[in-house]
């Protein structure tokens, strides 16, 4: 952990009482927070130099019944990354937007709504971003079966077995 990073985490300790820190490597740290303390933590980290939102993504933990939201913050001062993660309920996935902190989050949140079905309160722009005419479960959820969908929508090529050709390969007439 770099000095810059530990300073930021110390200040974070004043705002958020309890959080878990996992050190991934020298320049990368993951902190797990409760959903309600994510927003204060993010705004504090933004003021502490981690003002670049590299990525906002989600992970589907289907066995736990949770979606994990992952905010990756990058600092241009020391090249360190802080990964802020939180788990929200999978049944009625809703969270608050961070659009006011990073305007770019608008598009990340649109993407998450499209691919996981997570709604973000405060972000009113929830049009589909990549998919067109989507008519099934959000496709990156673990309970969505892409093979079944592909079979339903995109007909496969049917192959016929060529016995004579295979016999020729076995006999050595053709180099298979």
């Amino acid at each position: 952990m770099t000095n810059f990073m530990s300073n930021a985490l110390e200040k974070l300790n004043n705002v958020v009482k309890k959080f878990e820190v996992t050190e991934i490597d020298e320049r990368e740290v993951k902190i797990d927070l409760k959903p309600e303390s994510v927003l204060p933590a993010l705004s504090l980290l933004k003021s502490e130099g981690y003002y670049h939102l590299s990525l906002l993504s989600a992970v589907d933990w289907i066995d736990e019944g949770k979606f994990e939201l992952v905010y990756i913050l990058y600092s241009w001062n020391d090249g360190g990354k802080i990964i802020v993660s939180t788990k929200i309920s999978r049944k009625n996935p809703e969270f608050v937007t961070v659009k006011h902190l990073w305007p770019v989050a608008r598009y990340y949140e649109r993407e998450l709504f499209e691919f996981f079905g997570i709604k973000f309160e405060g972000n009113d722009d929830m049009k589909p971003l990549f998919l067109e005419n989507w008519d099934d479960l959000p496709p990156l959820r673990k309970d969505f079966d892409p093979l079944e969908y592909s079979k339903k929508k995109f007909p496969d090529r049917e192959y016929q077995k060529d016995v004579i050709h295979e016999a020729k390969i076995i006999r050595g007439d053709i180099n298979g």
Partner: protein
Amino acid sequence: MNTNERGIWEKIADQLRSRSLWMLHYCTGCGAIELPPSMTSRFDMERFGMGPMATPRQADILFITGYLSTKTLRRVIYTYELMPEPKYVIGFGSCTLNGGIYYDSYATINKLENYIPVDLYIAGCMPRPEALLNAFNELMRMIRNGEANGWRKYKENYEWYKQNQLRTLGEVFVHDEFHE
């Protein structure tokens, strides 16, 4: 009318057509990387009288490299219908044949000839530039013999193609968020 029937003028025209082909490459997938070596000095596609073309209005061949997502398939259908006749389609790589490694993807189609008529497939993942040039020679032979009739098939079986397109895409019309 039989699709293979050609008048004498058509036969002469086909001889000439096969010697001057302009190719519109719709590079949707990774296969696009095989085109620069085929076009440039090492394999030199132009010795066969072929050249790259930037717009569908002046192109003869629609060259589709790699997988097509439903989103790009709409644009491909637009592009194909914009091209003047006679027009030929080459499907490049196994993704256009049977989906390739994306056979179970929720976003990519598995069989291109359901949506637009394909005259020639090049199998492989990826086919080398030699295979590509071989395929171009084969296509020229097919044009000279009047076998490359995909565009006639599209006109005759338009309903069938449209039905397949609608089944997969819902609608073919392209909506553009930033220009509407």
